[in-house]
């Protein structure tokens, strides 16, 4: 099942004592995991906590890791469990009350693909916040599919593998979710388009 999965091989090497193999995996999955948690919780602090907890579990589970599935599926299964435990602990999704504070965003130095002005960063945070609100309106299964697809960057087959569903089912969920998101994020998409044009200039 995992033949040809370089990430599984890297995890095996790490389990055998090769530290560099783990660092490669960490760098590769760092943004995907973080954005998955950030999009799911809407809180940067919570996202960082869950992100760290996920990696700690990966480290602790290295000896029992068996490449029965892709590494991506395995690590996001751990991430999903962390998120579920978090929701269970607070009994409701965090991003309802813990949206990212614009002022906090301004205090910290963030690494992005481009350099934005403070105003642009504020706009970006604004429509990102709208994204959380839009995700909140989606049914759980559609929201999960969207998060795995766009925040974690998974393929349809990977999502199907992770959610133990058929690929067609995942596609269907995404097809229903995307129009809703677009209608709710029209303003954010327009802002993003404007920001992109500004960056390109």
């Amino acid at each position, binding site marked *: 099942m995992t033949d040809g999965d370089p990430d599984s091989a890297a995890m095996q090497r790490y389990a055998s004592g090769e530290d560099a193999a783990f660092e490669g995996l960490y760098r590769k999955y760092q943004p995907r995991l973080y*954005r998955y948690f950030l999009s799911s919780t809407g809180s940067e602090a919570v996202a960082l906590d869950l992100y760290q907890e996920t990696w700690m579990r990966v480290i602790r589970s290295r000896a029992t890791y068996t490449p029965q599935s892709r590494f991506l599926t395995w690590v996001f299964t751990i991430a999903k469990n962390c998120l579920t435990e978090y929701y269970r602990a607070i009994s409701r999704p965090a991003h309802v009350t813990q949206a990212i504070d614009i002022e906090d965003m301004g205090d910290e130095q963030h690494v992005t693909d481009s350099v934005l002005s403070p105003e642009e960063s504020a706009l970006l945070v604004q429509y990102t916040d709208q994204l959380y609100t839009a995700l909140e309106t989606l049914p759980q299964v559609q929201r999960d599919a969207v998060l795995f697809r766009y925040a974690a960057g998974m393929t349809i087959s990977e999502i199907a593998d992770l959610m133990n569903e058929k690929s067609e089912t995942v596609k269907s969920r995404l097809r229903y979710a995307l129009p809703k998101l677009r209608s709710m994020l029209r303003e954010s998409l327009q802002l993003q388009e404007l920001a992109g044009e500004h960056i390109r200039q």
Partner: protein
Amino acid sequence: MTTENTPAQSSNSNLPDDIDASEADIASLFANQPLPQMKELDDLVLARASSAQHSFQEKGSGKAQKRAPDGSTVQNDNTVDSRQSKVVPFRQRDSFRHVFPGIFAAAAVVVLAVVVVPLIQQSPDGFSTDKERDGHSLSSDAVSSTADKASDVTSDLDSDADSADFAELPESSIRGFSQSLGADVSVKEAVESKIQTDSVVLEGTQETRQNKATTQSLAPTPLEAESTALMESQPESLEFSTSQDQTDAATDINAKSSSSAARTTTISTERSIKPTVETGINITASTTPVFRQTLTMWKEAILEMVTNDKRDEAKRELELLLEHYPQEAKSFKPFAEVD
């Protein structure tokens, strides 16, 4: 689920496995989410990964496995090779670790058998074996033997007091004797009270104190001698109207005794605890010499007088003795015995 599959079923195939241009706008929303500066967190996670890996190898916990390309696991012998013969090979350490629980279990069984079981089987008397119990019985016998001796001594003293002799005296003769001495009460009562007082001393409430008092009473103590001397020398001060007065006087006498202070205190206290002279009985004890208090003492005093060539005095005492003990003293021939 039904709503998901029916209307969009035909368009599902349009969504590729990877994200395509139709999803680019939404995907870019997620991709543009800013990443915070996570250098510290990165360092923390990577350091944890490295340290966990190294401690894992140091421990040789048996989990370090090398996976074959086919997914099967093979034993990682790196820990053995890197340490050569300096450490126990991994497999041997693993086997040795399995031996430890057995050793501890065997030691625990031995401890249970040697220490705990005898303690559990120990009888309520505190001895686990008959031998120990017998050994303890010996010491108990010794103690009881000592107590018996003390009891015997007490009995001897009681018999020495000749209370039976006085009890057998006719009341009339005793009263006549006491009247001749000027006493307000019968000598019999006085003598009996004296005997009872001595018995109180000898029958102390506690066994150890009883033994001590008995030992002290076996031989005339300086206290007794001094008390007697005081009684003879200060007759007026020793008139008792109540038992409390007697107690106080006895305490006073004992206080005046400079020698054997400790023994004096012991005896005086015990006498004070159980005064035997009842309230209202006025005893003029000073008029009755001590040697006349018992028949034996009286006889010995007469014999001593004869021996010391105080025959006239001895004769008077003998007449008095015969007057008060006509039956008992009838066969007493002090002059014949001495001669």
